[in-house]
């Protein structure tokens, strides 16, 4: 370990790091030690092009860029004295010489480093009279990203990202001098599974996602910590909420899970939350064979009645449950609790699989696949055999992954059951055979814990209320239990009440 002193405070840092890396590892960069920077990014190679992170190192005549200056034992650094300030003002002035004054229509405004640092180091007046360079304001780099050439400060973060993280290298800085711009190779648009990260790491408003562009000013967003539900990686995200709607996911840094990245597929799963096909009202199958909307109390009572009748006729063994790998650990614990209280041991969980890669994307396409396994839910094959053999009369189903083509493919196999009690977030063909349908909450609407593929249990709060009346599956199951005069000894449920 080396000892360095930054602005009078001593730190122990590891050898072989540069100043910014060391401060970032200590967790003090921009949280106590403010060294402004554009091109440096903790997860990308060092570029040293923006010159914004200049600091004074005692004994070194010229200012040094903190991003590319190795730490030395006994190093004494000043990050905010007059000389440093002057240098940064100079850098800012040159960066702003050609920057358009379009903050009022720029999506980055409010979370723009150029704006932030202009407040700290900018001049009130411009000293140049020459016209700003006029370039293209709307270049489609690919299907997901729109590029504004005028706003670009040429930090090369996006170029380095494409070369170093997905390794696809679609982007290049072409031309030179004040004609320099970001371009794709002729005929090869920006197209990879992680393309939208370039908009996150763009320190200015040059790269924006087509999805979020012009949708909402970022200062109206409430950013709540969340977990992406696209696969079992459990990438940490910020859930951006405005007007009771989720407007975007952006990656939340977690070096143990997803670094600072998020795949495009996962990022777009936020759209499921406000999708038009959400189940928004409880329903029970009426006498005419149609699903009829009702209250939650009625639906719960109806579900309890189906179970009561079946148990009275044929014993608890004929009630079974299909868990969901999308449910939280709390929901799954409640389901186990209900089954245990009934005395049924017949259950399983369908986990849909799909393409994976070596970076983030996992084959299991649900956030809590591992949590379901840990809770004791196994492959659904045995349960399905028992259903086909007539050994099940009533089935509680969380989610509709069971009718995915990797499992049943259609709900027909469940049509012969006396009762199918469906707790689900989104409409599906499973409703055709359901006797009771109860709306469920999305993870972002209920919070809780999910367990990722490595066994990491991650807790998130609820980010918003659903647009309709719905309670979490755990609470629905608890209500069904109490309607049956059963007490489900669920640790997490008790804990939630006492919290």
């Amino acid at each position, binding site marked *: 370990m080396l000892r360095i002193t930054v602005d009078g405070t001593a730190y122990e840092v590891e050898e072989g790091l540069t100043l910014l890396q060391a401060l970032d590892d200590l967790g003090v960069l921009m949280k106590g030690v403010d060294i402004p920077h554009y091109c440096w990014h903790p997860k990308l190679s060092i570029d040293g092009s923006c010159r914004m992170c200049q600091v004074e190192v005692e004994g070194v005549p010229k200012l040094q860029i903190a991003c590319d200056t190795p730490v030395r034992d006994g190093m004494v650094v000043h990050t905010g004295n007059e000389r440093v300030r002057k240098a940064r003002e100079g850098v800012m002035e040159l960066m702003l010489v050609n920057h358009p004054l379009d903050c009022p229509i720029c999506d980055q405004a409010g979370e723009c480093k150029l704006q932030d640092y202009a407040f700290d180091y900018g001049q009130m007046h411009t000293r140049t009279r020459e016209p700003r360079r006029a370039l293209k304001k709307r270049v489609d780099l690919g299907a997901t990203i729109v590029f504004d050439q005028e706003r670009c400060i040429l930090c090369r973060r996006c170029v380095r990202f494409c*070369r170093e993280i997905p390794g696809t290298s679609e982007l*290049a*800085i*072409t*031309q030179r001098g004040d004609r320099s711009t970001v371009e794709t*190779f002729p005929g090869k648009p920006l197209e990879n599974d992680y393309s939208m990260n370039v908009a996150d790491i763009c320190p200015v408003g040059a790269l924006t996602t087509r999805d979020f562009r012009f949708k909402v000013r970022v200062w109206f967003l409430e950013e709540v910590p969340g977990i992406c539900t696209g696969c079992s990686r459990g990438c940490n995200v910020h859930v951006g909420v405005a007007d009771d709607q989720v407007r975007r996911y952006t990656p939340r840094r977690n070096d143990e899970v997803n670094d600072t990245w998020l795949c495009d597929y996962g990022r777009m799963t936020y759209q499921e939350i406000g999708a038009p096909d959400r189940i928004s009202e409880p329903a029970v199958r009426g006498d005419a064979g149609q699903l009829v909307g009702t209250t939650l109390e009625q639906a719960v009572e109806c579900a309890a009645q189906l179970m009561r009748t079946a148990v009275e006729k044929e014993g608890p063994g004929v009630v079974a449950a299909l868990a969901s790998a999308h449910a939280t650990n709390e929901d799954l614990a409640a389901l186990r609790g209900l089954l245990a209280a009934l005395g049924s041991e017949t259950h399983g969980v369908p986990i849909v699989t799909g393409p994976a890669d070596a970076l983030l994307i996992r084959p299991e396409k649900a956030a809590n696949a591992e949590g379901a396994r840990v809770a004791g839910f196994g492959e659904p094959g045995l349960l399905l055999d028992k259903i086909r053999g007539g050994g099940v009369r009533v089935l509680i189903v969380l989610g509709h992954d069971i009718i995915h083509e990797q499992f049943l493919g259609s709900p027909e196999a469940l049509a012969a059951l006396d009762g199918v009690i469906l707790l689900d977030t989104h409409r599906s063909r499973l409703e055709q055979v359901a006797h009771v349908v109860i709306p469920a909450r999305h993870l972002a609407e209920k919070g809780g814990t999910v367990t990722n593929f490595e066994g990491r249990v991650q807790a998130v709060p609820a980010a918003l209320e659903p647009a309709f009346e719905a309670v979490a599956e755990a609470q629905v199951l608890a209500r069904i239990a109490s309607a049956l005069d059963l007490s489900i000894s669920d640790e997490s449920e008790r804990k939630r009440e006492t919290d």
Partner: protein
Amino acid sequence: MVSVATRAAIDAEIAKMPEKRGALLAALRLVQAEYGYLPPEVMEEVAQIFGLHPTEVFEVVSFYNHFHVQPRGRHEVNVCTSLTCSLRGGRGLLRQLQAYLGVRAGQTTEDGRISLGHEECLGACGNAPMLRIDDTYHLDLDWVRTQQLLDGLE
């Protein structure tokens, strides 16, 4: 595909360099000499030879004025317009050329005969105004002499 001869010349350039990519500029010059310009598929082939991403080759090609991604005329006529030449009539010569050929600097005549351009300091300030036709310098020009030079190009 670059010809066997060009490929051999590229390999000879690579052999001279401590790092392979050091020969990239030389290779691009050789390939452009063969094709007249550097279309995307050729840049990709060069990238493959050097183990680079095509975008890295594209960056180099776009950085230098002497590399072209569009087809060019049979002859390059470039007037020097740096300060000394401009003081001695370089820019006037360029204007006359534009009017005479009916194209602007950076464009190619319709018959594909001449690509007109201008560039900074060809190192012949003492003999300004001057221009370069392909690889040959023409010094101490006046309009009559320039016209003769142009008309002599096939």
